[in-house]
């Protein structure tokens, strides 16, 4: 191989590398331009894990005195969905149970995969019709090999001026710990 051949080979190699690099840059650029926007949701925290607002749910006297659960929807004063700010919209539902002067609240959503849990009057327990998890009135698991990894999700409540207030939250499904969604 003489010098000019060698020069030609390295020139050709350079052209190939340059061409592939430039083409790859052009080809990948449009997608790259949108990657940050695409990944935007994982860079933000949602929900209100840090500062849960109190929502007024129902008059205390409307709860059965014998501790039978009653279902209520929870209306939040302000809800932001992407660009829209809603006022006074239902964000979920709870079972409220009277315990003397206090109230226990269970999220309607099953801690397993988020189906809506029923209260069964006959057997006086909670039952998830999706995957058959069942829970006692205190929210504890009653199924053997329960699909749900944890008891029903409770939330902070208070009774003020005759009304039940709640700090309503959703939690990460299908893990043993109760972790607020964020």
């Amino acid at each position: 191989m003489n010098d000019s051949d060698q020069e030609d080979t390295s020139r050709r190699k350079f052209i190939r590398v340059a061409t592939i690099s430039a083409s790859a840059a052009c080809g990948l650029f449009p997608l790259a331009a949108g990657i940050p926007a695409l990944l935007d949701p994982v860079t933000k925290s949602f929900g209100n894990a840090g500062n849960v607002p109190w929502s007024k749910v129902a008059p205390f006297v409307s709860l059965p005195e014998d501790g039978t659960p009653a279902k209520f929807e929870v209306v939040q004063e302000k809800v932001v969905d992407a660009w829209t700010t809603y006022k006074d919209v239902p964000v979920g539902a709870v079972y409220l149970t009277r315990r003397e002067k206090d109230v226990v609240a269970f999220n309607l959503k099953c801690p397993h995969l988020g189906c809506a849990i029923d209260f069964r009057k006959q057997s006086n327990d909670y039952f998830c019709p999706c995957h058959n998890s069942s829970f006692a009135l205190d929210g504890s698991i009653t199924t053997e090999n329960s699909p749900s990894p944890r008891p029903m999700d409770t939330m902070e409540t208070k009774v003020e001026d005759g009304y039940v207030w709640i700090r309503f939250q959703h939690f990460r499904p299908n893990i043993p710990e109760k972790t607020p969604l964020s």
Partner: protein
Amino acid sequence: MKVIFDWLDDRSGYRNLLHEVLYEKVPGGARWRYVWGSCLTFAFFTQVVTGTLLWMFYSPSAQTAWESVYFLQYQVWGGWFLRGVHHYMAQAMIVLLVLHLMQVVIDGAYRAPRELNFWFGALMMGVTLALSLTGYLLPWDQKGYWATAVATNLMAEVPWIGPAIQKIVVGGVEYGHHTLTRFFALHAGVLPAMLVGLVVIHIYLFRKHGIHVKEPRPKRDSYFWPDQILKDAIACLAILLAVVGLTLYFRGAPLGPPADPANEFPARPEWYFLFLFQLLKYVPAFWGAVIIPAFLVLWIFAQPFIGATRPGHQLNIGFWWTLIAGSIALTLLAFAEDRANLRHAAAIEEAGWQADRVLSIVEDQGIPPAGAVTLLRKDPENRGRNLFAAHCASCHRYNGHDGRGYPVTDEQSAPELAGFASVEWITKLLTHKHYISAEYFGGTAFKDGTMARKVLAKYTPEETALLPDIARLLSDMAELPYQEALDDEERDELLALFYNDDSVFQDGLACIECHDIDSEEEGHAPDLTGYGSNEWTVAFIKNPEEERFYGDENDRMPCYGRDAKLTDEEIQILSNWIRAKPAE
């Protein structure tokens, strides 16, 4: 690795295909003049990818289109960049289209046997322009809204079926949800799919006939890979850099205030349609919408045949150069006319103000489900300036304009109200020279009234020097939000001056002789108790003919409340607005 590729090749035959694609012969060697087709393909590819990503954020409805674009632009990480790239690449694509077309025409590549491909190319140009037009509306801001109204009204010019076409495209007769869903379906579905199909046909036909070689050939023949591809890729990179540069420089694509049919905005298309816009000032809409496009279609169809002879080819080249030169001239004319038009500049500035304003309200309150446009419609600041422009500015001025920044053509015939009731404003009012000038009462009967002739004109220099103190007293009663209140001692001193307790003003020239403050008596000049305060201003706008104001000496000031020209709420908004800020 080789085993996998061998298997893949055995089942798909991809190596042959790749070879076919890459080893296209380029007679006369790779040249820069051949890059435009690849550049356009790259631009279109960028639009498809960035457009699909934008799709993930866009919501086509009258209450969510602007809002979702706002969210992408200001709340999503890198959203402004993604949108900017799509916006500026669309503009680059138009420039590239013209370059590609001119290269084809000048090189004679449109002639036999490539006529069909030339026509397909022209069709693709039409589809690309339709993509621009439909994309312009999607952010649902004032600019897109008003410009699209013009564009769709042109459609109605087509004989017989025009009105039906317009109705189909708009989704009715009013612009709303269905205009957006249809434009979006066209922009993100129908038109790109058409363009993909046309690109395939275009490239197939291009391959069938091979590259049209411009003689003389500079070098020996080579192949598409890698020589021509390198040139293509470098050109694409240059475009990419230009687009990124524009995006960074302008910090993404603009987003005007939300579309509002009740909020006037001077409709202008995107810059590459400006020549058509300008043309419509000279020719009837029917020409712009039907005759000229029809002529162009026929002409483009005929060009390959006309170009078969040398003079015909020259004619074709001349035709396109003339068209381009004409378009540039019309575009420049359009820009120049807008620049010379003060109202246009004011309208653009006003739209800019509204865009900033709506952003600051959104930051403060969020966007209600009814959409961002309701924020501006309810905003007291925005309503105040608009009410002033509509009801006050034909006589009064605000910083010399109509409250929004528009120049007013009617002669000023009532006081300038920027900084109304401030110390500076009243001090000037109490100066004879200003009192009788157009800036205050020069355009009214009060110019020759008692106050002007028998009081202000008669003050000695010593008395004149006391007037700023009177101004401080009066202005204090206005309780303007941007001025500090006087302390009690100071107020008492100034009141003593007003009442002329120490007889510092000559007889007949003390304020108290005609005007009252805090007394039951009705002097014959306006009562100055609470002058310029919210209560005073509201009452004055409601009825300046009330006994405590001008009474029967009122000179043309309408009684907005008494005669139900404005509601109480509107008068309150006006009062707040007039009293909110010092003069500029």
